[in-house]
């Protein structure tokens, strides 16, 4: 860059503190004496918080069960063995029995967890059409190219919902039964399957296409369901507010997880007698075993979990706080040693002078 010689002195701005670089400034100078209290205070604060986090995380109960059945240990191994291929026989069901010696403090949430499932794989993650899912009729008829090869069916019909994510929708289902007395009958525990998706997803991001003659089925006429689906999207549920693209299971599934091990909310247990939690007694979870995971070495888990003020169970955060806090204290002591040693020497120097 070159300036012209003639521009010299011309257009000089007023002499302000800025142009003369004399703006008032704060000049912090870190030193041991300043850092010492910082380290100790931060250390104590972190340890305190860490303890709190650790205990509140420990207070969260979790009950989980791996029902993949690949080791032949559970009664789901029959289904697992049957479902070696990609299309397990429908109607394979198995069950998980467990008993609670005491109240499982509520509210209780029911999750399923998949491991070794790469929802974050790029080709998988991009294989969706958000315009279609937001109910845009044009996108319904012409799914985005990213959906390929789940863009058009073999018959050439547009797939709705298109893409690999939708195609691989988790399709196991669970029901929970409670036996209050030993030998007594199992009573079905009501599972609240609504409100499991993000509010914005259910209300904003996912919309069904406009109804045709009041019928959702007609709206989806001329489209094909994804190849792996057994029923069309408008039949996902009988509840008109939970079918089509706004089926909450579907919406939850479409939020792709960050890591290859992830859990997704299946249901909330908060109705009737179970609003305070699961009372003690024996339980049975009936599992409809459809989803094949053994092919890629994955596992399926079913999890009951309670929730604290900070969310789900996460002991690691508390531990992290404790570790960081302890390190701070440790560093504080190092600083203290440094401070005392050099303070002395400085004093000596001054004395010598």
């Amino acid at each position, binding site marked *: 860059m*070159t*300036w012209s*010689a*003639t521009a010299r002195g011309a257009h000089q701005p007023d002499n302000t503190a800025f142009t003369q670089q004399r703006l008032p400034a704060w*000049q912090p100078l870190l030193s041991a004496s300043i850092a010492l209290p910082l380290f100790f205070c931060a250390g104590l604060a972190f340890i305190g918080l860490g303890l709190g986090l650790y205990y509140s995380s420990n207070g969260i109960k979790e009950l989980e069960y791996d029902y993949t059945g690949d080791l032949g240990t559970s009664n789901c191994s029959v289904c697992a063995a049957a479902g070696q291929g990609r299309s397990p026989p429908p109607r394979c069901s198995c069950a998980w029995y467990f008993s609670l010696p005491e109240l499982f403090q509520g509210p209780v949430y029911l999750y399923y967890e998949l491991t070794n499932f790469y929802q974050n794989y790029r080709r*998988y993650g991009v294989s969706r059409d958000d315009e279609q899912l937001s109910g845009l009729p044009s996108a319904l008829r012409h799914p985005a190219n990213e959906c390929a090869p*789940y863009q058009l069916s073999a018959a050439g019909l547009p797939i709705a919902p298109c893409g690999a994510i939708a195609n691989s929708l988790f399709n196991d289902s669970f029901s929970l039964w409670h036996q209050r007395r030993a030998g007594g009958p199992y009573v079905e525990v009501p599972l609240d399957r609504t409100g499991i998706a993000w509010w914005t997803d259910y209300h904003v991001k996912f919309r069904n296409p406009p109804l045709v003659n009041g019928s959702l089925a007609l709206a989806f006429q001329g489209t094909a369901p994804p190849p792996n689906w057994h029923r069309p999207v408008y039949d996902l549920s009988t509840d008109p507010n939970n079918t089509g693209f706004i089926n909450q299971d579907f919406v939850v599934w479409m939020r792709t997880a960050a890591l290859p091990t992830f859990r997704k909310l299946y249901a909330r247990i908060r109705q009737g007698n179970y609003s305070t939690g699961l009372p003690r007694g024996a339980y049975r979870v009936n599992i409809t075993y459809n989803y094949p995971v053994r092919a890629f070495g994955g596992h399926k888990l079913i999890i009951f979990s309670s929730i604290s003020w900070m*969310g*789900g169970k*996460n002991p690691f955060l508390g531990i992290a706080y404790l570790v960081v806090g302890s390190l701070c204290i440790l560093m504080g002591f190092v600083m203290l040693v440094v401070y005392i040693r050099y303070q002395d020497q400085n004093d000596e120097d001054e004395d010598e002078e």
Partner: protein
Amino acid sequence: MKKGHRDATLLDHEKKWDNLHFLTSPSDGGREGWGACGSERSEVNRDQKIERPCSFLCGPSEVEETMGWRQSLQRTDMSKARTIYLNEPLKNTFCKNSISTAKYSVWSFLPLYLYLQFSKAANAFFLFITILQQIPDVSPTGKYTTLLPLLVILTISGIKEVVEDHALLETAEMQTEKQLSSLSGKIECEGPNCHFNSFTGTLHLNGSSPVPVGPEQVLLRGTQLKNTEWILGIVVYTGLETKFMQNSVKSLLKRSSVEKVTNLQILVLFLLLLVMSLVSCVGGMLWKDKHGVDIWYIVKKEHNTHSFGFDILMFIILYHNLIPISLLVTLEIVKYIQALFINWDEDMHYKANNVYAMARTSNLNEELGQVKYLFSDKTGTLTCNIMTLKKCTIAGITYGDQSSRSDAGGRKLSQSQACSVTEAYEFNDPTLLRNLKNNHPTKACIKEFLTLLCVCHTVVPKRDGNNINYQASSPDEAALVKGAKKLGFVFTTRTPYSVTIEAMGEEFTFEILNVLEFSSFCAYVQAVKCVLFCVALPLFLKQCRLRTLCVAYIDLTEAEYQQWLVKYKEASTVVQDRTQSLEDCYDTIERKFLLLGATAIEDRLQARVPETITSLLKANIRIWVLTGDKQETAINIAYSCKLLSGQMPRIQLNTDSLEATQEVINQSCQDLGTLLGKENDLALIIDGKTLKHALHSEVKKNFLSLALSCRAVLCCRLSPLQKAEIVDLVKKHVRAITLAIGDGANDVGMIQTAHIGVGISGNEGMLATNNSDYAIAQFSYLEKLLLVHGAWNYFRVTKCILYCFYKNVVLYIIELWFAFMNGFSGQIIFDRWCISLYNLVFTSLPPFTLGICEQCCSQESLLRHPQLYTISQTGDTFNIKVSRRFSAGLSSRLLSEGPLDSMCKCFGPLLHSLLVAHKNAGACLILEDMVLQGGHTTDYLFLGNFIYTYVVVTVCLKAGLETLSWNKFSHLGIWGSIAMWLVFFAVYSFLWPTIPISPEMTGQVNMVLVCPYFWLGFFIVPFVCLIQNVMWKSIRNTCKRTLLEEVREMESSRIQELDLPRDSEKSPRTETANLQKSPSPQPCEVVFRNNSVDLGNPQGSAFSQVEQTGISQEELVRAYDTTKSMPVGTVPSALSKAVLE
């Protein structure tokens, strides 16, 4: 040709032509009007003082290097002779005179600008990425996420170019008068070329014989008339063909070393990018081998369709943001503003002629903080180049010996007055006048003395009302005449053959018989009325460091004179060895002089030169004075500006032959022994003749090591080329930044050669300024320019660069970590627009605050403790050596200042950014199956937003940690950036589906900001990332303080008077461990056997005379006639009115 017409041909019909080359009349023209102009010859040269700017002459123009110009230069250099026909415009078809030094025109802007931008490697890289992104399915980040920032950056850069380019258009007007219709003929001359000092042409006027025209008759573009208001001239070159423009192609674009390191670092980052891409590719292949076949939910066909090449392109796109896209434009703007700060600085504002300092380039701002060798011109740079009569001695009595008093007074003068001639500085001794009036025994001598001062010179008087101004080619002569005038001996009129003076009320006229040339040894003599007055060269006025002259005279009889005159005429017509025979002839008459006395003239140092030099020496800058002046003068000046001190041993090299030079240099080197190569309290003095031999390839190395072992080096009697050669020698063989400062045309070479060229914009014209990188009005401003602006800029630029690297690595390395979790599929964890706006918006401010507002300590402290300069001078925090080791794009001062070894210097930021990334990756694990309060589960972008926020916070806080001085802009930049991201995040989460971008972001903010995990991480992640930084800084500031920390502590505790250990540090442990070694030179205990070492007192004298004038003094004297006013006629007055308008 009639008097009263002011202009020659070619001018009238092309009013807009300007800046022409004039031919002044040949000196033997003998016509009225020409005579007046003839006097210009010695005055008007390209380094002309601007006394009366004439309207048709223009100030020097500025120059921009463009490719087109270079071509035109080469082309025209070759071109053949041209013929110019007077008064026949149609026959003359040459280029227009308008000059546009602008880089761009309206039409060429876009293509040229784009070409220039994309010839920068970084921009070309991003263009390449943009193109790659258009390949379907390859880009993980969408098609336009790189295009947008690139466009924004090109736009900003383009606006800057336009703003800069705007000023470069020159449309000066030349006011011309009537054409001389009576004149006809032609001029044949050489074609346009770049040689200032040569011109050959012939003027053929119809009806008269051809007249040769030489360089003395040519006025160059940019010349300003001084002693006359108008001239007659003929245009020979116009526009781009003028010699000035042919010369004004700036040499190579200077690049700073920091810039070079930065380019290297970008390259290293690029390699890192390639490595990361390769690793990811291999990882992807391994992953596919392990999982690929079985993963039914992932689109099967993908596994085989995409090749390795496809994958690597994908990963390059994924990681390409490692290279900071905004770095170049950030740096450009930062440096632009830094340069503005230099331009605006009131401390470098020379109020006497309202000249501000000027940064003509902003490329070298940070290099100002690294200067190790300073090459300074003497006259006009260290001194004012204004001579004043200071003392004289007449018949043994010394007058004006009040130097101590006036000096003391003078020191106190403010800078602005420093170089203007004030009464306080002029000769003022009442005793002299008293002796003259009171019939003191020496009265006759005094009278003779003053008369002689009045008469013997080549000065031309110029009446301006009642005042008489003196114009002289030698400032010394003017000083003498002015001195005499003050004592009542007023030189009033000069005619070609006589001189009239007014002495004590009476008028005397002296006839000038002959003018004997002044040569450097024997002085200048005029025979006047058979009295041979002689101003002879000097004896020594001991210790006074003034330029001295002896004044003597001899009475000659008529017969003696006639006898001599015959000899003189013979001698002056000898063809061979004319000079020698003339000198012999002078010798015959210059005898038996009666010594009247002596004068002492002072070429005053500019204000604060000794202080500045002392300060620069303390800053461990070695100062070499390179002057064309005499050795004695140079030594004198060196003493008075404290470059040399009385006890300092001097090695003087004055030899005639290569062998002798070699011998004496080797001898000196041996004498130094082990001290060779270290800095010793020695001075080396060498003259141009010896230097010629010393620069011989065999001797060069020893000479250089000898010179580098001396604290001060004085090179005298140098040609401009030699000056440049010395600078080049040091520049090539020493890894240090060199700075050359000068004011005259003879300094241009070294100004262009040195890393940084500084021009003194003052008396000697604009050539030095126009070739410099920085222009200042006073030498003393160098102190502020280097110690404050230089040091600051160095800190700022390096911090800014390293910070840009740092922040990019921190964010984008996370993608690599994430790749390990997603099967190396190229999935991004952040939203694509967040990625592309990271550099452009959310972290764009901290680099600016670091680059513009950062101050390591206050201006006052930097000036008070020049030792602080060595921090930036050594620059080991940011140099090639460091970056070579880990070739660190990331070599850095960010972590490096202090006790950490160079390993940390190199790896620091990388480690740090990896650590931050790792901690964030850790956060991934921590929050593995993150469940919200409502029991909701989350997605990848939720985690991405966590991490992104933490990165923005960490990176901004890191900037805060590196900011040593927080002003309001720092606060704005750091807190503002964090706030900006949060606001953007909030808005961005609500765009879909109204604005169809980023559906994934929908509702993120509602979920993220209410998530307790987010806030828990918000406090711990940046804390953990930065805590070890805080610890290192604290420990270092406590145990291993440098001077900088001491100073900063003093500042913050508001202790005004810093009583800091300077040269002898109180304890090596506490501070300046790394500063100490340099500034204090080692005591020198060498015994010099060599007789070249001179320990004596400085003595010397000199008398300046304009060298290389094309004409003799006799001619000069004969040419003037001040009794005649400017050519008679009515036009001049009208003209001057026109000029006034």
